[in-house]
């Protein structure tokens, strides 16, 4: 297993490097002088020239890339045009919010998605299944921000049960109860993804139930519930696990929107604001962080998948 992990990590490196090249080229693909872009609209020609020399923009691209990569590996992602602080610091501030949001969302997805999917498959064809399948497809069709807006309207404005925006840190006054700020956002983010998991679990369980080894399990005289859990669900998990990487990607993408709707000080909102503010170093930094994170998560999913399915050769 360890060898397999090491090997997979090795194959990841070229992909990450290639992705980093794309991220690096990002600044240079924007029309205009890179130094002028980095400094923003209020820069003087002298400042632009100075930065150009300092950043080595007059050097050939491969050299610049090497310099940039070197900096990145040491933790220097550049300086935010808007904040004037190191990019990594800016990103770090949003990390707490985004990580907590993502975690809570995953909890909802697993807690709601999997059991409802199992229920749906177990009562296939009956009204429970029709309602949950239809409902799942419906929720998967809802734009996240629309759901978020209406949840705010109902639960914050009309009922006043939950706050509608912002998120004080857990370190601040209120401590863990501050998580209630993340309740509505995490539910909003979880809804369409949980719906997809419901459909996946259902489809996967129905597929597995048709397989020969389930008939063998029944022929052993096992209780139907035992067959369902040990032989159907356990095997269905393989397909579900494989989908979690995709789920994470969807989470990261949609968190951008959700954080905007609920004004959460997270990395997603940071990206959008940076785009609108033309704070390119921050955009670059966030993209890089997310790409690395996403790649690592996919690796973790692959490893989990290999653990769940002994047939996957650990060569």
């Amino acid at each position, binding site marked *: 297993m360890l060898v397999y992990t090491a090997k997979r990590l090795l194959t990841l490196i070229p992909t990450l490097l290639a992705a980093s090249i794309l991220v690096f080229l990002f600044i240079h693909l924007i029309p205009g002088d890179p130094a002028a872009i980095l400094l923003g609209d209020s820069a003087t020609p002298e400042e632009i020239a100075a930065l150009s020399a300092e950043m080595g923009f007059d050097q050939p691209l491969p050299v610049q890339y090497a310099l940039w990569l070197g900096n990145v590996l040491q933790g220097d992602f550049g300086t935010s045009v808007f904040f004037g602080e190191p990019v990594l610091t800016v990103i770090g501030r949003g990390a707490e919010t985004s990580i907590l949001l993502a975690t809570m969302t995953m909890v909802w997805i697993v807690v709601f998605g999997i059991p409802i999917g199992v229920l749906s498959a177990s009562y296939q064809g009956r009204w429970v299944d029709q309602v949950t399948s239809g409902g799942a497809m419906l929720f998967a069709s809802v734009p996240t921000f629309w759901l978020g807006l209406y949840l705010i309207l109902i639960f914050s404005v009309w009922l006043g049960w939950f706050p509608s925006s912002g998120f004080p840190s857990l370190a601040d006054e209120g401590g863990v109860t501050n998580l209630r700020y993340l309740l509505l956002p995490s539910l909003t983010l979880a809804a369409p993804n949980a719906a997809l998991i419901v459909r996946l679990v259902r489809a996967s369980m129905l597929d597995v139930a048709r397989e020969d080894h389930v008939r063998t399990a029944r022929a052993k005289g096992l209780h139907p519930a035992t067959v369902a859990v040990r032989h159907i669900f356990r*095997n269905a998990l393989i397909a579900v696990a494989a989908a979690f990487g995709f789920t994470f990607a969807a989470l990261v993408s949609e968190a951008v929107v959700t954080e905007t709707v609920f004004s959460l000080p997270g990395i997603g909102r940071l990206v959008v604001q940076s785009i609108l503010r033309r704070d390119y170093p921050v955009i670059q930094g966030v993209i890089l962080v997310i790409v690395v994170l996403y790649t690592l998560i996919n690796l973790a999913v692959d490893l989990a998948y290999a653990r769940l399915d002994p047939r996957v050769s650990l060569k």
Partner: protein
Amino acid sequence: MALLDVEDLQIAVAKGRVLLPVVQGVSFSVDADETLGIVGESGCGKSLTSLAIMGLLDGTAVRITGGTIRFDGMDLGALSPKERRAIMGNRMAMIFQEPMTSLNPVYRVGDQIVENLRQHRDLSKRAARDRAVELLDLVRIPDPGQRIDSFPHQMSGGQRQRVMIAMALSCDPKLLIADEPTTALDVTVQKEVLDLMADLQKRMGTAIVLISHDLGVIAETCDKVSVMYRGRVAEAAPTAELFARLAHPYTRGLLNSIPVVDHDVEWLEAIPGRVPTIDEQLTGCAFHPRCPLATDLCSQTAPDPLQIAPAHRVECHFAEKVVT
């Protein structure tokens, strides 16, 4: 009294609101230490019959619509699901056609045998595991102490089928149903598996119901044979008797279509026509559209079972003619 007594079994498939009969009155019996062969083409209902006996039709679109199945003195139809489950894998066991997919790929082979053992016997994990190793040895899996921890995909088809046999026999069942156990295996492996089954039968006195479309396999291993066609038993007799004095045109057709190896032939004989699908309803004898001896009588009236010798039953208007 026979160990297994199937009387006038009827099975139908629910298609929408309609019930289409698939098995229409099948009867046979098996004693301990005996091997009954059920032979027929695809679609004749032999697999469904075996599933019905085993109790694996519950919860599917296929159901038993008539007849009785008596096993070890009990009427299986009168048992509760819980009582039924107590028998499955315990007093009665089954192995299937596709060894490649009949074992759960995510669990080790030994764990799957242990699961069967601990379901029906009060054994500790250790004791069950030891017993599983013994069983693997019994079915001639080399190095059973190691192989017990193998995953199914690490074994060949023949080995997987032997694991299935080990699992089926783990609780010393009185009856083993084998649905085409060797069809998916190479010929050499086939022989090994069949020999193994015969050997185990001698040792443990298990009754075996062997289902196959291969007359050769049936001839080698069975004490008596029931030939099924389209949901009915066309002919039933002890094996030697059947091959010596067959009395049904279908049986003759089956026998004739086996290629011979001792002399040259120009043409391979086949039974003309095809097996009708379950939606197609027929009057009279089910075989008449394809039968060389068919007359108007055959298309109008279904033949009643005819006892032409002590253990030899046949359903054909012209049975006497076929024998001679």
